[in-house]
């Protein structure tokens, strides 16, 4: 990519190539305008995000109950997590299952839907984008699923299955450990199409129309060819954005499971790492331990992010 100078140089000074620092300083001065433009964002970002996050790192090494001053206990939290805490291991297993099922599926699904909607005419584009984004705008939309999966015979799913004779007695969808995982995965998939989907819609909308015209002239036959030869390569950055959202969404699942099956759920069948952190953070007020849990999750997400970026960069520009 060509180097973009942001300010026209008035007096070209000889660049001191001898010293790396002098050269860096030269670049800094030349891009002065950039730094000024980024200043408002990064000032606020530092104060309200970076500083609190960095300050919360050391909490993982302490015992902190929100009342007394944090007490330094070294790596004991991490030791307890992996050695003594059986539930944490269950939570890790559940989180990985959720992440593997919901992450890629919701990613592919939101991409496909965004693509299909893009094939519609302008009115239906707005209409369907609205329809598929609606759950994200409805507060606690997934509560509806409680009615569907309700454990008594009045639950919509139960009553339909009983009427059809598939079930002989009402199934406890939300408390029977054999169904819970599947039910929560389905609902999770349904709710996870929010921000990523909308960002992908914007990505599709942002593709240069002349590319398609050129494609038609070059002899592209059908939609699929167009998708793979023009659309996907042109959408790399949006795909990456949606991927990052999908990763963070997939690994921080917990809200849906907690509100459908309760916290903690029966036998911890849908207990995730995030639920575990909430359990310690906002129920037992063991903030040190909760921070340690979040740290572990963060490291796992960073690794996955790295892997997925490597894979995606092969297919896009």
């Amino acid at each position: 990519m060509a180097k973009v100078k942001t300010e026209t140089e008035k007096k070209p000074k000889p660049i001191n190539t001898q010293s790396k620092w002098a050269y860096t300083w030269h670049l800094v001065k030349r891009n002065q305008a950039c730094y000024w433009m980024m200043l408002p964002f990064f000032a606020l970002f530092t104060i309200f995000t970076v500083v609190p996050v960095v300050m919360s790192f050391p909490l993982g090494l302490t015992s902190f109950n929100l009342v007394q001053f944090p007490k330094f206990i070294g790596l004991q939290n991490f030791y307890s997590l992996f050695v003594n805490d059986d539930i944490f291991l269950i939570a890790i297993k559940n989180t990985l299952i959720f992440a593997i099922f919901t992450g890629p599926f919701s990613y592919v699904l939101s991409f496909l839907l965004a693509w299909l909607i893009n094939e519609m005419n302008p009115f239906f584009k707005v209409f369907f984008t609205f329809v598929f984004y609606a759950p994200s705008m409805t507060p606690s939309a997934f509560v509806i699923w409680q009615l569907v999966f309700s454990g008594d015979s009045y639950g919509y799913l139960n009553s339909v299955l009983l009427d059809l004779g598939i079930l002989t007695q009402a199934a406890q969808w939300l408390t029977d450990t054999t169904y819970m995982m599947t039910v929560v995965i389905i609902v999770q998939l349904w709710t996870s199409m929010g921000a990523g989907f909308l960002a992908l819609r914007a990505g599709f909308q942002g593709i240069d129309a002349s590319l398609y015209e050129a494609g038609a002239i070059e002899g592209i036959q059908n939609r699929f060819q167009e998708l793979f030869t023009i659309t996907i390569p042109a959408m790399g950055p949006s795909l990456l954005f949606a991927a990052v959202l999908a990763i963070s969404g997939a690994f921080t699942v917990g809200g849906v499971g907690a509100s459908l099956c309760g916290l903690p759920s029966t036998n911890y069948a849908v207990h995730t790492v995030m639920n575990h952190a909430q359990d310690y953070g906002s129920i037992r007020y063991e903030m040190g331990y909760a921070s340690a849990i979040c740290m572990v999750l963060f490291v796992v997400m960073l690794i996955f992010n790295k892997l997925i970026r490597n894979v995606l960069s092969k297919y896009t520009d």
Partner: protein
Amino acid sequence: MARRKKPVNIEKVHVKKSKGKHINGSLAGDICIFILLALLGIFMIFPLYYSIIQSFKPISELFVFPPKLYVVAPTGENFSNLFKVAGNLWVPFSRYVFNSVFITIVITVLHVFVCCCCAYCLSKCRFPGYNFLNQLIVTALLFTSTATWIMQFVVMAKMGMINTYWALILPNVATSMGLYLMRQNMSTINDSIIDAAKVDGAGAFRTCWQVVIPNQKPAIATLIIFVFQAAWNVQGGALVYEEDLKTLPTIMSQIAAAGIARQGIIYASAVVLMIPPLVIFLIAQSNVMETMANSGMKD
């Protein structure tokens, strides 16, 4: 002269040409896609539909179990009750509305401005620190912790922001998600327009706002939808405790917290709160859909 005969008429080369629609694709395919989307759409629109019909149900229908999916005798009772309760508050109801509207507008405007400026630099300029800052944003997107809010509170308390509008506004202005969205979209812009702007003597700021941003309508619309929704739902919580500064969602949840006796009001307040984001969504999206993007390069 011989070279400038008659240019090939591109309009005629096209098999089909329709505004804002793809060139490739058959009518049968369109119909199949429509049916598929419509079927899936029913599942997605269902909770919205359900909240709306619940808010129009009279008290006698609200507690029928299993809940009916339609209203037998629709009534505006829940809404009138909501506003009756809202009229008897300690602080005039209009104060909460003003707070929410004010905060939402300020956050949205600042957010879009700040993120666009920063995203332009992070995507199109190469300066020392470029890689570090980009990495920082992605890393911040992945970080979730249940403990961060404590430290955020500590920071704001140290700066004396607690119980002011600042506490509601400033933390929501600079989010890594908004920035990353804009950064990713701007990075698809052709470098040649930026070079052209530079040759014409535009500085970084002018290039950003007069050349790049007008080409980023879909991304900006999405950004506005995200930030408006987030800003409208700002609850305040521990950050403001004075009644004068509380926002509409806070007071709505306080009204709804009165329990089962106000079941209808809960749905009515949810519907009332949903309206502004829905309106913004429709305005933003329909503005984008009119035109398909073009690179801004006219040959």
